[in-house]
């Protein structure tokens, strides 16, 4: 049954000549040609002859990777199409090398009914340049009161359930959602946050918040709520996914849960993996996000967890905002940064090039691991597979600028950063979704 939808684009006929194919799941890291015929990978190997009608692209010196999958994007449709819509959000995804994206339910109105989800699936069929799927809300209107009709939402194609942006405020609500998920067979995902500790917080609580006089969000605000959800998942023997882990203390709880064999997965964002609360000293509202950027110890623990697989995957938490929500004093600004177009380059520049993470592991965490969590076929570069791949120039350097985005919004925490690694071509579900003309 379909959990993603996209607009009908012509199937690709392409010969990618001379690139370095890195597909950790198939154990491949070698210079190979890749032939795509009618959207499927027909052949990989040396010196493939281009068949008639196939376009040959010289990708010598470039990386040919399984395309990335994002389990956590806010595409703002329906309701805030001025900030992002399905067309712009999926184009931004394609420009970042993503071949599959899952959108959060905290839209206006929220995706809390099967009818709402089917409506968005229709929009995706008309507008999405890469396959797009949707979370269903756990509670109606994300109010944290009454469960949604999760079974019908699942039948309509909801990939998982999440009230992301809001925590599940009571233990009994977490329990009921996990119990009900046994009917739907879909994972419940939690945004770990104890609201009483959040209490108007602006940034991570620590020496930097003390110095700046900004209300702090303690690490415990996340880790207590994550631990509670994990305990409940163990009690109900139900699968659980933890959104955007930011604190080292949450990782400890996650590690304990995983060691007991619990079916639990977790994601981390590029910004939490590469930035710390020191960035907030600028009072630049683009570095205001929830969960907040934490301390260097947290960041290092997160990188280590991504490496080991304790954190299963990278997710962007792409959160576009209109200028009116960000071009205001820090304390009045909305939480969130965009991320689809910078994720790979940021992690390649800050982690792979600095040898904190190897390329193969990064590819696994950005592509095949999140695809598996979503219950879909993981992208693979092997004959017979649907072509879900991206071509990256690992030597190209570029600067993140407001003008450079395909997203409708430019509230990036990485503005001004000089990055290495540029996505040149993205083939999603066998269709060319992105080609860099630069």
């Amino acid at each position: 049954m379909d959990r993603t939808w996209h607009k009908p684009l012509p199937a690709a006929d392409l010969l990618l000549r001379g690139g370095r194919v890195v597909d950790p799941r198939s154990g491949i890291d070698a210079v190979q040609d890749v032939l795509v015929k009618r959207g499927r990978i027909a052949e990989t190997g040396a010196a493939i002859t281009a068949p008639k009608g196939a376009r040959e692209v010289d990708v010598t010196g470039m990386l040919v990777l399984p395309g990335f999958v994002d389990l956590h994007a806010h595409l703002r449709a329906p309701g805030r199409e001025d900030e992002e819509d399905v067309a712009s959000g999926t184009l931004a995804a394609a420009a970042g090398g993503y071949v599959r994206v899952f959108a959060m339910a905290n839209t206006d109105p929220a995706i809390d009914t099967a009818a709402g989800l089917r409506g968005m699936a229709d929009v995706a069929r008309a507008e999405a340049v890469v396959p797009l799927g949707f979370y269903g809300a756990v509670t109606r209107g994300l109010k944290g009161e009454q469960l949604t009709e999760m079974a019908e939402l699942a039948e309509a194609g909801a990939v998982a359930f999440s009230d992301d942006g809001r925590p599940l405020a009571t233990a009994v609500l977490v329990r009921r959602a996990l119990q009900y998920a046994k009917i739907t067979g879909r994972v419940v995902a939690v945004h770990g946050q104890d609201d009483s500790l959040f209490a108007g917080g602006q940034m991570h609580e620590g020496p930097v918040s003390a110095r700046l006089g900004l209300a702090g969000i303690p690490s415990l605000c996340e880790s207590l709520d994550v631990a509670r959800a994990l305990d409940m998942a163990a009690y109900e023997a139900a699968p659980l996914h933890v959104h955007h882990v930011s604190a080292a203390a949450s990782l400890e709880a996650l590690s304990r849960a995983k060691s007991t064999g619990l079916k639990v997965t977790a994601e981390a964002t590029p910004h939490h993996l590469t930035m710390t609360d020191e960035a907030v000293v600028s009072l630049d509202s683009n570095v205001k996000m929830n969960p907040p950027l934490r301390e260097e110890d947290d960041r290092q623990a997160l990188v280590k967890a991504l490496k080991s697989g304790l954190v299963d995957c990278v997710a962007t938490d792409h959160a576009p905002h209109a200028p009116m929500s960000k071009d205001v004093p820090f304390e009045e600004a909305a939480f969130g940064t965009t991320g689809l177009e910078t994720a790979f380059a940021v992690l390649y520049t800050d982690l792979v090039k600095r040898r904190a993470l190897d390329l193969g592991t990064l590819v696994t965490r950005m592509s095949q691991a999140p695809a598996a969590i979503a219950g879909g076929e993981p992208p693979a570069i092997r004959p017979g597979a649907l072509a879900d791949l991206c071509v990256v120039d690992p030597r190209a350097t570029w600067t993140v600028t407001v003008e450079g985005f395909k997203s409708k919004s430019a509230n990036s925490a990485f503005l001004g950063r000089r990055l290495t690694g540029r996505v040149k071509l993205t083939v999603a579900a066998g269709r060319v979704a992105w080609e860099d003309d630069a």
Partner: protein
Amino acid sequence: MAKRDLISIEDLSREQVELLLDTAESFLPVLQRDIKKVPTLRGRTIVNLFWEASTRTSSSFDLAAKRLSADTIALKASGSAVEKGETLKDTAITLSAYGPDIIVMRHPSAGACQVLSANTEASVINAGDGKHQHPTQCLLDLFALRQTFGRDLGGMKVAIVGDILHSRVARSDIMGFQLLGMDVTLVGPPTLIPRGIDQMGVRVEHDIARLRDADVIYLLRIQKERISEGANFLPSLREYSRLYGMTRARLRPGQRVMHPGPINRGVEIGPDIADDDENLIALQVFSGLAVRMAILYRTVVGYSDAGSEEVL
């Protein structure tokens, strides 16, 4: 030439702070004359933008600008376009059309000065932004200390007592006092001391009896909303006063008391201290005028020594 903003005490070097205090001192004779005005900033335009209640700071900035012969515009949130929903960015663009040299702003949110500065050619002076910074208060405090204890404040011990968590004055003072070589201790209930503040190089105490070695006791105002239901920073003002209220009996002879005002008589400060002439509170208010004249002057002419002779 890049414009000069004063948003945080960290924007100033020790030399610049010393120069500002010297400049303020040079203005003192002006304030004692019959005609208390100099033509120094004639033809300059200064906007005072107060988006939050203020008596001392707004009146002293206004008077400081007038003493220097600048033209001033004063705006408050109530009765202005802010009430109609105008954003700070648009207010900045609107006011910039008048070509002001300086915009002085108080705002309830940290980060407001950065937004203002990004949208105006004028120099921005922070008159208090959220709980972040209040650099001109720090400078007038330093001036009052210099008037009392002499030019070299190095090695002096100051204890700041009260609600550190919510105090922009405390944050600016910690930085400014340390910049001039003073030793700072923070005292207050653990609920009102921010976690991690010790990394600013201060000592943290919760017992007011441990302040015997301080030369100066700097009291902070306790706001009533800290005892509101749900916040629970304090069980009651009475309890705070019992534990941390400063009275003559708790003071060691020779210790001097400061307070940024407005005071809560009977809460953080006993009437016996508020009414005696040993405290430096009135001197702080007086210092505010000279120091803000110096800040306006230095913001326009710069921090090089040349030029200070022509002030008078």
